[in-house]
């Protein structure tokens, strides 16, 4: 889909849809939002809807970074301590490697 051909109101609607959609535990939707609308929000010359699009892009970016932080922390902890957690670690795992703790 080429954003050039859309009128500004439709761009705003699309950006809003992606922003609200990302709250359903979909951080990649926020990433797509940021990457796709970045030029529209910060590079293009000003137009009426641009301020709202900028807000949405910034919030999506923040949300995505928050998800990245949370997931990285959890993954690091889990990978490091899974063996020590014994039974709990095994019940949390989907596949358990063979032959190593």
């Amino acid at each position: 889909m080429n954003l050039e051909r859309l009128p500004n109101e439709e761009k705003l609607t699309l950006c809003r849809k992606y922003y609200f959609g990302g709250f359903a535990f979909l951080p990649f939707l926020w990433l797509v939002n940021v990457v796709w609308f970045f030029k529209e929000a910060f590079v293009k010359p000003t137009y009426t809807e641009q301020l709202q699009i900028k807000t949405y892009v910034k919030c999506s970016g923040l949300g995505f970074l928050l998800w990245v932080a949370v997931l990285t922390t959890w993954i690091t902890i889990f990978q490091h301590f899974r063996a020590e957690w014994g039974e709990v670690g095994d019940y949390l795992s989907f596949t358990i490697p063979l032959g190593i703790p």
Partner: protein
Amino acid sequence: MTGRGPGTIIGFPHKRKLVTSIKLFLFFCLSDVSCNSVAQKIYVELNNTVPCVRLLNATHQIGCQSSISGDTGVIHVLESEADLEWPLSKGPNPPYMVLLESSLFTKSIMMKMKNASSRVAGVVVVPKTSPPEFSPHTTCPNENTGVYTETYDHNLAHCNTTVWNPRGNGLSYEEFDFPVFSLKEDNETEVIKQCYFDHNRVVNGSGLQYPLCAMQLFSHMHAVTDTATCMRRSSMDFSTSPVMVCDPLGGYNVCAFIRPYNSTAFGHKENESVVIAAARLDSKAFFLEDSTGAEGSVSGFVTLLAAAQALCEATQEAPRTRNILFAFFHGEVFDYIGSSRMVYDMKNNMFVIDLDNVHSILEIGQVAVRSGTNLFLHSDPVSRRNNTVHDEVTNLVKNLQSSTAGLNFSFVETDFSQPLPPSSFQRFLRARAIPGIVLADHQTDFNNRYYESFYDNAAHLNLTYPSNLSPEEQLEFVTDTAKSLTEVATAVARTLFKQAGGNNSQVNKINADPKTVTQMLYGFLVRSNNSWFQVLGSSLRCVFCLSEPNPPQYYVGVAKSSHQANALTYLVQYLLANLTGTATNLTQSQCKKPDELPNESTYLYSYLWVQGMVPPNSTQRESFCVRTAVRLVKAVSPAFDLGDYVSKEYSTWTKSQWKFIKARIFLVASRDLEMLTLGVGVAVLFTSLLVTYFVSTKADVLFSSVREPNNAAY
């Protein structure tokens, strides 16, 4: 219309060339059978290997583990302990695959390699001559599952008074994180040594030239940490099918009553008193599948089999006051799997008798390596503090000592304060104070210098046959070891007869048969595929149709969910059946379903179809049906039935599963050469990309000069 052949199509001259080239390719391909295996030119597979595998119990994992894609190392043949410096510190091409001869397979060398395991990729052991002594077992076998715990008697726990296996170095119970394999001494070992001498030999301490001879060992084990973890992981349901990572050890005990009971009626039998005669079936070694156990287990159960035969011949007529149970326990090495199961079954009314019915126990331990003419009677000092138990034990000792009249040895009681050696009787004592005696050839510590190792074989028992005998003649030849074990069997049979209340005047007619004993020793220790075992064996279960003449495996193995026992259990079952049962006239179909006949009962007896002999003038075997009281009783640790995988009470041994185990040798190039090849390949890739890019951007310049003449012609 020129005369072309039917196969050609006009206007397609290339097709004939294609067909011809295909025909030529097929010709060359089919004439060389392995036309597509470059792998066969590189690797030499080693087929005759025995790996060290991983075993787990409630608290530890023992054994060896390789990485999932195998461990590769440059082969180094170790010549002495000082030579260990080369693989551990001096050698320039780590990691090394160390090849040892059996005299160098000691605890100190293995521990040094374990500590430097980043430079050692694996160890290969080539068994040759036996060292003077070697026992990879612990010094106090089964110390936590016997009867001597802190609460039973503080002074006797953990072998405080007598260390039973002082030569034990505990090597079998160590954990190694590199693979350890054992090779048989044959052509493959020669190939490896030849490869080593051609490529890897150090000349005057100077550097080695690549390519070097290397070996790769695959023995990746799936289970890890301990039994509770691996049983939990085996039973988790995932969306795909669950992966079993370990199996509990276990097998079958072989039991036979002289006067059988209804096998469906479990629990206490009123007014029945039983004397249990017990022996152990299994043994182990560092490489589990190589276990032989000549003195450790074979001496005991062969004596008991011979005693059973002698007793059954003499007691056809007279009923006695007490019954006798011949029990052969399996899995005793791994914390008393078989005997703990039987005691558990007796306590929970899952066996035909219970502990109240047991009058006394006589166990035959290691009896073949005597240092003198005495055999020793071990008893438990703690239970003998009770006067009734003490009187019964004294009575049993008296019966034993009087039954050696006329024989060339005598029974001597050991020191009163000495505890029992590791024996199945200890599990019975753990449940109840039962009077009993364990027979052994050692007074304090074991006479067995190779306890639970792969050197405990026929040579250790001095089973020597004159060299000019054929295998059939060797089978019949009565060795000195057989004679001494026959005497022990005679004494045991007479004692059991007296314990069961038999008439004293009949006692001296009971004699064990030396021919049976020597045939059993030959079959169990030298060659199983002999004519006697084939006669007595089953035609259905072809476990006796062993292609190699090796003795059966004595390691207990995993408990299979199907009702399949291992070869040793079947051998002992069929032998006991033939020695104590009666041959009948039933046909094969009647033998499978004897209940339809008026005099036969499957409640009391089991019916086995035996192969029989080949009569001199025909080729067909005369098979027959044997009616016997021998039964196989499941011997799996109660911990697995109870689901208590951290049990301190019962055995929790499991064996890991694996996908495949193999070994191969090949030549390796230096790391520098590998990197250079990779670098050149990557460089060629980028160069070709660059060239393609430039050619495509300048295409009109490069190719336009070809087009112009055409345009000019137009």
